[in-house]
């Protein structure tokens, strides 16, 4: 147990170090002044420049610079945006939760819908109903997410007019930013009509969440179905059947858990796709998330923002992936297998 935790922690820290090194080297690789790329501040005169360079240890060897850079990252001093001049930490602190919120709801829908449907299809494998589910999921899995989002905008926002086109919540509501998650913020807000605000936020959220969720759900259905079919063919299911257990007993005691175990690592892979999809959909719906924010940074050549944005997004992805993997490692008893001499 301690061993496992240490191993995953080491992996996590090392990966983050590599990422930090990459982001540090970006300051040198991006065109323009290294000092500006690193801090986001444009020095007005030589004296100020020298003072800044000394402050960021730019006159020292690269290793010392990198060490200092790590310290700055950890203490939350991530530099400033070129364009807005605001500290990047604050900007990301606003943009990141919006993306996480979108991705979380999409993932929840995918789990709540995809896994049970996948189980159902797997248990009814190779029957007409299974073929139907399978083809529908393959069909929706093959949609490019941006096209699906555009289609949604066209149909639901422009033609039918039942969902707003863009944004997170109507501008009429003045919601103070407490957690960064809009639904939580509304619940925490003091003097607004919470019911109205919630329904408005949900209206805004529906289309982008659905656009991402459909693809993830389809992936989830396919993974679960495959896994269930695999488990059904295992000898221990046959053995359980020959012991005369009922269908329900076999399903609940032997199939559910064994089918879920191989899905979890695949889910970790899905997280990357999910966040990428969320970032694409954000730009289409003007959702104030990290994807939208990064695109703006690219348009405006905001190098400090790109440097930190890349680090933030990859840290998020890696944290989630490693957490899911660790969780899977902890709940799967057979993964602590060690070779045993057999006669």
């Amino acid at each position, binding site marked *: 147990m301690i061993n496992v935790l240490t191993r995953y922690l080491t992996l996590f820290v090392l990966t983050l170090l590599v990422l930090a090194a990459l982001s540090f080297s970006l300051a040198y690789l991006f065109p323009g002044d290294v000092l500006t790329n690193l801090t986001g501040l444009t020095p007005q005169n030589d004296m100020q420049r020298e003072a800044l360079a000394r402050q960021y240890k730019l006159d020292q060897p690269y290793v010392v610079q990198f060490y200092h850079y790590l310290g700055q990252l950890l203490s939350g001093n991530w530099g400033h945006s070129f364009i807005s001049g605001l500290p990047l930490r604050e900007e990301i602190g606003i943009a990141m939760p919006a993306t996480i919120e979108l991705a979380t709801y999409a993932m929840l829908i995918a789990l709540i819908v995809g896994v049970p449907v996948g189980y159902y299809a797997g248990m009814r494998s190779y029957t007409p109903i299974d073929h139907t589910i399978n083809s529908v999921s393959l069909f929706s899995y093959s949609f490019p997410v941006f096209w699906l989002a555009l289609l949604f905008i066209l149909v639901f926002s422009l033609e039918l007019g039942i969902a707003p086109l863009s944004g997170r919540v109507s501008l009429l509501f003045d919601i103070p930013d407490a957690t960064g998650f809009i639904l939580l913020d509304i619940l925490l807000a003091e003097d607004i009509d919470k019911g109205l605000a919630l329904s408005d936020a949900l209206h805004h959220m529906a289309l982008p969440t659905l656009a991402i969720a459909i693809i993830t759900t389809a992936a989830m259905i396919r993974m679960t179905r495959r896994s269930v079919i695999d488990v059904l*063919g*295992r*000898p*221990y299911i*046959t*053995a*359980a*059947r*020959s*012991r*005369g*257990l*009922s269908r329900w*007993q076999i399903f609940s*005691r*032997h199939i559910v*858990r*064994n089918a879920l*175990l191989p899905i979890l690592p695949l889910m970790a892979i899905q997280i990357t796709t999910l966040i990428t999809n969320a970032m694409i959909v954000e730009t289409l719906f003007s959702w104030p998330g990290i994807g939208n924010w990064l695109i703006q940074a690219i348009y405006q050549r905001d190098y400090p923002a790109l440097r930190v944005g890349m680090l933030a997004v990859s840290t998020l992805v890696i944290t989630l992936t490693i957490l899911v993997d660790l969780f899977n490692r902890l709940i*799967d*008893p*057979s993964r602590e*297998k060690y070779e*045993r001499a*057999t*006669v």
Partner: protein
Amino acid sequence: MALLDIKNLTLEIDTGQTRVKALDKVNLTVSSGEIRALVGESGSGKSLIVSAISGALPPQWRMTADRLSWRGESLLSMSTEQRRQVMRRDIAVVFQNPVSALDPSATLGQQLEESIPDELVRGNWFWQRGQNRRKIAIGAVHKVGIKHHRHYLSAYPHQVPTDICQKFMIAMALVSQPKLLIADDPTRGMETTTKTQVLKLFTRLNQTKSLSILFVSHDLLAIASMSHTMTVLYAGQTVESGKMKHIRKRPLHPYTKALLDSAPSFRNNLPPKSTLPTLEGTIPPLQHMPIGCRLGPRCPRAQRDCVVTPVQRRIHDHTYNCHFPLHMEKL
């Protein structure tokens, strides 16, 4: 009375172009209170018979049988629910590979406790029933010769040695107090002392609880000492079947004779350093089964007639499928 009665059981599988008969008109009966040995080389279809009886055949197999009945009721025409009840209470199966036949994600104790039929559990409230289940499970584990029940009941299958898994499979089979135990090579991978322990347990259960056992194995030595009757299988065909002592004394089929001769412990006059008598050749692969009597190409007594499948002949309760059995000396 015959508990299990199988007549002309044929199992076929499609291999692309042709259809292969893996089992060709196999006959097998298990009477109540007897230990029947089912002997054959690996690949002769022993385990297929076990799967066919327990209804665990993969769907690509096509099964036909003139009769496959349990105490006079046909297992083939039974409803799924009825069949499930039979498997739950009357027939218990120990499968060949214990490690893969146990659920890797549940502890051995959970799997053992779920095999206990509800009727055997006493108590009205769920905690009483849970305790009682636990007690029955511990008793069953002790019975098959596992001492440290505390350790093994909470262990996962991959954490324990193979022979403990095998014993757990046996415990799971016996805990439902079946009428017939089908044991597919139950002592494989066990050391000699544990093997004797398990065999003794089987014999004792057979004598005290009149448990019928279909003992599938290729371990002639173990079988010969405990079983009453024997059925010999070669490449999916029943070769010879009858009382153990008759077959040992005077086998009628050339294959049975070769099989018995190849086991050194059955012969007391074997001179040292002499070669063991064996049949020429090997078991034919499933795709290239000879027509007629499948032993034909390897049989020392084979003649032209052997391309026709021999019918079952009978001398009292000793049956054999051969055109030129050993007691007919003319060739």
